[in-house]
């Protein structure tokens, strides 16, 4: 006995060392080098023998009646195989993420600039383009309904959708609304309890996801009458759910495989060219590829909701918040997309990570003739954070308090209640996040002795040699939910297979998770290495042959599909051990898997997995469901609505050329609690990426829409940060486990996008003394025409 134990310990010293590429390690992305070298195959690189090219005719008007569509000339173009309108759709003519209110191809009406009217399939993209131009559409052009005032007065300005067509709780031109009241609400009596009241009107422009890989995919008709679609998307199964009824096919005959995704950020949650390509493929019985051009991409996906917000905060003289009242108006554009959920987020998270005894909130999304808006990283929490964090700075100034101290004084922590009545039942280290952001060393002041123009606002545009430069510092903190909310069961499925290949135990992970850059493929392999004690893990292509993995959004994939992979791997591990017990009659209660072997803590190596498995594979599929949530009450907003909360604090340091209104962000610090960093390198990358996207919203990114028309559908004029705009982003990561989550992890990707924007604006305010109630902040806002 004694000998065996010693032997066992000896063996275990080598074996029980956790894989460096398991969870907590930072193995590199499998696609990283390929992407950097330009060798990664994106969905736009797909190719098939004899394939046709699909293209859409899009409306130049934001609002019009279609009087006639004449496709006869287009059909005559040599090389054209099909020209389709809504009349050619075999099944349902509508689709939509939450509400099926969007026609696949316009039916009699145009509701936004760029709406698709007809489709062409041709043997060459140039042929398709020429044919599209030969489609004759007769329009009755109408005055678009584009402002809040116009939308809310349908008697005068009309309806975007006829009320009898509403497929949801919409009324007027309001697509969705959510009210919320907590404590005593906000009444005159409550207002009287506050020593100080600050209010403000804030505006957020329309940000775009600006992914670099345009919408693209390849639809291949199959012999069974079904269709195979290779597609860059965020959620294979929800695409299929919307596609099958339009194609008049049972879901099992609509098979989707994920193609290389060139960025998503929410912009691929909705259907873009999926149905169009399949309709053309069905009609021609040939493979059809569609790749959007850059300008078409700007028309072809939803954007972040522009917002107009009114906030009022009351506090005692010593800085304790007494009440907060807020109205958030989100412009949802022509179709619902994710507007209802965005409204739910804005309403439930719109007061920030603060304890406020009395709260009132009214959030609405409008139907308008502006471009449709839906999911984008931060999802309703981004707009609100600009409002409540601007208010915190305003209140601190009014009270003569330090803005960080004011925030800390009112910060929520574990055990506190959200305005929805939901108790925060895992760590909420808001005070500490702010403190750490504040305590980080500040970057050195501008070196005026040895000026490098690249470090100044304007950089090599050579606008300043030090003149007009003023430094500013700003702070912010934000709150974001993780996972789908309001009673939705957004479960994930994972299949793990363990078998012997080439004399080694090899695990395969099969999910329908869309890898859009978040690093799920890396994390899945890490989880399996840790759970099964094998080094070799392969990732099966994501497709609809396995159950849904839910959406790659809402910071949820590591939590949800990672959780499913963990469950499946654990099940495979248990099955393997059970197999050993049956075969060898083990009675040990301390069996684990490590180093490719079945191991007993006390008895050492029991058997190599290779021997135990032989030619048999263990192949198991598991679903992971998060704890159930509840819908918010329509009037009071009360309910256990969210799965998990995540927090990030930022400090921004900026140099502003106050004469020219040019901004250089010098440093953008982020401090975030991630529960458990499964892959620390990826976690830091996500936080830095999220901060950079927030920087874009703060100082440059906006789709300019005038009278319903998009004016800058190109990367020439829709500007995203370059490396010269992107500052060093020091990241401080906390790991305070959430007991409800797999490994205690907390979703990472969105919180910095929520919190970083207001810190940059606060820093610009600090440098300029201007109010700045609109983002993105433009040079003219700092010089010639300060808004508000």
């Amino acid at each position, binding site marked *: 006995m004694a000998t065996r134990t010693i032997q066992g310990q000896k063996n275990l010293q080598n074996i029980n060392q956790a894989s460096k590429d398991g969870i907590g390690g930072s193995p590199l992305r499998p696609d990283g080098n390929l992407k950097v070298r330009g060798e990664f195959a994106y969905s736009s690189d797909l190719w098939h023998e004899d394939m046709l090219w699909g293209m859409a005719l899009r409306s130049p008007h934001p609002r019009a009646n279609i009087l006639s569509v004449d496709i006869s000339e287009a059909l005559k173009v040599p090389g054209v195989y099909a020209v389709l309108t809504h009349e050619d759709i075999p099944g349902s003519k509508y689709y939509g993420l939450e509400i099926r209110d969007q026609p696949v191809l316009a039916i009699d009406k145009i509701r936004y600039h760029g709406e698709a009217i007809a489709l062409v399939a041709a043997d060459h993209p140039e042929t398709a*383009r020429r044919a599209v131009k030969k489609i004759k559409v007769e329009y009755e052009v109408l005055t678009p309904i584009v402002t809040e005032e116009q939308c809310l007065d349908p008697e005068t300005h009309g309806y975007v959708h006829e009320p009898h067509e509403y497929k949801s709780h919409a009324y007027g031109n309001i697509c969705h609304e959510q009210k919320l009241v907590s404590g005593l609400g906000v009444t005159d009596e409550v207002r009287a309890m506050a020593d100080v009241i600050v209010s403000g009107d804030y505006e957020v422009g329309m940000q775009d996801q600006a992914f670099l890989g345009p919408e693209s995919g390849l639809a291949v008709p199959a012999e069974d009458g079904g269709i195979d679609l290779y597609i860059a998307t965020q959620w294979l199964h929800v695409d299929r759910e919307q596609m099958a009824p339009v194609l008049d096919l049972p879901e099992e005959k609509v098979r989707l495989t994920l193609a290389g995704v060139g960025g998503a950020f929410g912009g691929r949650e909705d259907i873009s060219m999926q149905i169009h390509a399949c309709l053309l493929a069905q009609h021609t019985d040939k493979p059809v590829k569609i790749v959007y051009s850059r300008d078409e991409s700007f028309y072809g996906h939803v954007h972040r909701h522009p917002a107009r917000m009114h906030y009022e905060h009351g506090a005692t003289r010593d800085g304790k918040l007494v009440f907060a009242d807020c109205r958030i108006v989100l412009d949802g554009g022509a179709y619902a997309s994710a507007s209802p959920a965005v409204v739910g987020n804005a309403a439930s998270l719109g007061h920030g990570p603060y304890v406020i005894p009395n709260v009132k909130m009214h959030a609405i999304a409008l139907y308008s003739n502006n471009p449709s808006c839906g999911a984008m990283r931060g999802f309703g929490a981004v707009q609100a954070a600009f409002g409540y964090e601007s208010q915190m700075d305003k209140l601190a100034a009014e009270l003569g308090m330090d803005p960080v101290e004011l925030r800390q004084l009112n910060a929520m922590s574990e055990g506190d209640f959200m305005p929805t009545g939901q108790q925060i039942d895992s760590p909420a280290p808001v005070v500490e996040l702010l403190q750490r952001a504040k305590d980080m060393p500040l970057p050195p002041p501008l070196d005026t002795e040895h000026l490098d123009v690249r470090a100044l606002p304007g950089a090599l545009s*050579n606008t300043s040699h030090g003149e007009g430069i003023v430094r500013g510092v700003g702070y912010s903190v934000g709150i974001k939910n993780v996972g789908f909310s309001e009673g939705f069961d957004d479960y994930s499925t994972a299949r793990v297979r363990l078998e012997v290949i080439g004399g080694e135990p090899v695990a395969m992970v099969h999910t329908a998770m869309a890898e859009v850059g978040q690093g799920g493929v890396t994390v899945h392999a890490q989880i399996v290495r840790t759970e099964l004690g094998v080094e070799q893990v392969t990732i099966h292509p994501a497709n609809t042959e396995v159950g849904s993995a839910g959406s790659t959004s809402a910071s949820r994939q590591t939590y949800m599909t990672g959780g499913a992979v963990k469950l499946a791997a654990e099940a495979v591990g248990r099955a393997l051990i059970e197999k050993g017990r049956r075969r060898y009659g083990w009675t040990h209660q301390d069996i684990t898997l490590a180093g490719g072997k079945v191991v007993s803590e006390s008895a050492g190596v029991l058997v190599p997995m290779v021997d135990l498995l032989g030619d048999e594979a263990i192949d198991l599929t598991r679903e992971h469901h998060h704890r159930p949530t509840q819908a918010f009450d329509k009037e009071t907003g009360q309910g256990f609505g969210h799965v998990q909360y995540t927090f990030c604090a930022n400090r921004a340091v900026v140099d502003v050329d106050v004469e020219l209104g040019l901004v250089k962000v010098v440093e953008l610090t982020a401090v975030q609690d991630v529960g458990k960093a499964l892959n620390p390198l990826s976690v830091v990358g996500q936080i830095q990426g999220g901060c950079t996207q927030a920087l874009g919203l703060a100082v440059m990114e906006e789709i300019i829409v005038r009278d319903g028309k998009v004016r800058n559908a190109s990367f020439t*004029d829709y500007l995203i940060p370059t490396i*010269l705009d992107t500052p060093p982003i020091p990241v401080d990561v906390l790991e305070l486990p959430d007991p409800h989550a797999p490994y205690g992890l907390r979703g990472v990707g969105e919180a910095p996008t929520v919190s970083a924007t207001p810190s940059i604006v606060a820093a610009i305010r600090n440098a300029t003394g201007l109010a700045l109630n609109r983002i993105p902040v433009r*040079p003219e806002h700092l010089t010639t025409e300060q808004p508000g």
Partner: protein
Amino acid sequence: MEFLRPATWDEALAAKAEYPTALPIAGGTDVMVELNFDVHRPSAILDLNRVTELTEWTNDGSVVRLGASVPYARIISELSGPLPGLALAAHTVGSPQIRNRGGVGGNLGAASPAGDSHPALLAAGRDVHVEAASVRGTRLIPIDEFYVGVKRNCLEADELIRAVHVPVADGPQQFSKIGTRNAMVIAVCAFGFALHPKNGTVGTGIGSAAPTPRRAVEAEEYLQGVLAERGLWESGELLGTEVVQRFGELVKAAASPIDDVRGTADYRRHALAVMARRTLTWCWNDYGKQIRSAA
């Protein structure tokens, strides 16, 4: 669409004479964007990339003859001494990839008011000329007369841009450009400024703030007057705030900008005044130092 690939300059001129609507392409940094966005659908494209003499420059000590296709990257690395204003402007063009492909010939051919080289060329002196050629012969077009409207120049249909002649700098030159991000940006507005002590003139160029690139003639005349009257060319003494301010105001007044997605007219006027004051100050400080160190 015809695709013409002449091997020599003479073949290029012959091709342009035969296909006067052919769109010349060199680096393609402008033409290809317009084609991709389906803005233009030219009947023919005239590829000048085989005409290697267009990528050469010469300097006879007083004038640089800059081939139309010399890329911006080489203007920066090889010509920042004789053509400092143009080299500064070249720094602000697009990305490294764009600067490796694009050149001044394309900027002149497109004649966009937002082209980065125009303000530097306008400021570089009265003797800047565009060398345009056709099978009928060669003419030197003064840069002021070259731009005739929004994205229009005075070239005849059968003409091609062979080179631009720019006097070697005899004094400090500066270039500033406003963009809403810190790199890779089309100008919201831009300003070029140069001192020409040899003939006692100054040069200005305004970009993206009028239908065409243009000089701020009154500002130039005002400043030349002050410099001459007060003997400042000789003394190199400070200009004083009033002169700098007035110069900025006159530059501002010379612009006729519009509101568009890149910026407002008011902001453009404002920024031009600031850039004019700053570039004048930088140039004059450098000039003053030269005078004092020579004394």
